[in-house]
């Protein structure tokens, strides 16, 4: 009886350590279970082009991916294209996605050019005040990482994947697929 009890306690402890390690993996962005908050960004290519808009509010409780990119680069371009493909594949399931470039207004032309050359359907946006925008603090974005992907549903984060290369984008797609599998 006493031995059984200690075995169960050890198992429960292991489960807690596992959950703790999972949370400790978050190097940038909100933790799993956190509520996504309003962040107005400047829309470059979406339906609110030229305006300040909060896509977090606009998507509301729909399953989505909020993608934050530190700056404009070939790697960022590849991941935005991959995110758009993920959106096109799942849009019939009310899936949403948005790309937000932290660098700010300096990224506007790059985003316009990218949209023109690749015909993207997801909105491309930037942080209005750039790296000093308050959204960095609200979303706990690590200035040392290139990107942060938050997979969310019902305004709660269900997966956080950050600082990945284009070849690892499958992790974001897998997390989105898992989330969509749980949405009726």
């Amino acid at each position, binding site marked *: *009886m006493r031995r*059984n*009890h200690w*075995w*169960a306690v050890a*198992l*429960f402890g292991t*489960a807690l350590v596992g*959950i703790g390690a999972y949370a400790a993996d978050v190097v940038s962005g909100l933790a*799993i*279970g956190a*509520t996504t*908050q*309003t*962040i*107005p960004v400047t829309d470059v290519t979406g339906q*609110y082009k030229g305006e*300040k*808009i*909060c896509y977090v*509010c*606009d998507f*509301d*409780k729909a*399953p989505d991916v909020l993608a934050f990119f530190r700056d404009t680069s070939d790697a960022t371009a590849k991941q935005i294209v991959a995110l758009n493909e993920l959106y096109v594949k799942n849009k019939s399931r009310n899936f949403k996605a948005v790309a937000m470039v932290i660098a700010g207004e300096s990224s506007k032309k790059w985003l316009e050019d990218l949209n023109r050359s690749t015909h993207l359907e997801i909105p491309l946006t930037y942080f209005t005040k750039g790296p000093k925008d*308050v*959204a960095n*603090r*609200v979303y706990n974005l690590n200035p040392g990482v290139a990107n942060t992907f938050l997979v969310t*549903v*019902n*305004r*709660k*984060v*269900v997966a956080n994947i950050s600082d990945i290369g284009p070849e690892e984008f499958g992790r974001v797609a897998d997390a989105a697929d*898992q*989330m969509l599998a*749980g*949405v*009726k």
Partner: protein
Amino acid sequence: MKPTLLTVVGAAAALCLLAPASSFAQEKSQQKKGAFIDGEYVEDYVYVPDFMAPEDLKKAIETHSKDIVIVDTAAPAVFEDEHIPGAINFPYDSDIKAPVSLPREKTLVIYCACKDHEDSSDVARQLSLLGYRNVKVLKGGWFKWVDLKYQTESSEKKDGK
């Protein structure tokens, strides 16, 4: 004894991991059935926001009205950066639970920085389910207020005075 204890521990760990993903479907089904208003079940309840025009809120601020409380649903950092004068911060939560710190005897004027009042309407809806009767949503929200060039204030500046 052994299998029972293990089952409980395993189920608890599984619940911790699966709760965020399952809550969406659960809430959707609850919304379809109706809602409890002040403990009474109301079939097919649909919340309709009661809007307040920004001009009216401006007048209320200028006349130092003591009948209203302005509620900003932004995250604390956004609120500290800039908000409507006199507003208090009540960050958006998709699942507000009682007890709520907001007063019941005054009219709450809720606003957010959303195009279609998504956050402010949802907070107003949830508060109505918790028995709040005097809840208004600021028409046009933060964006309209700023477009009209009405006064804003920053908590950071206030603290620095």
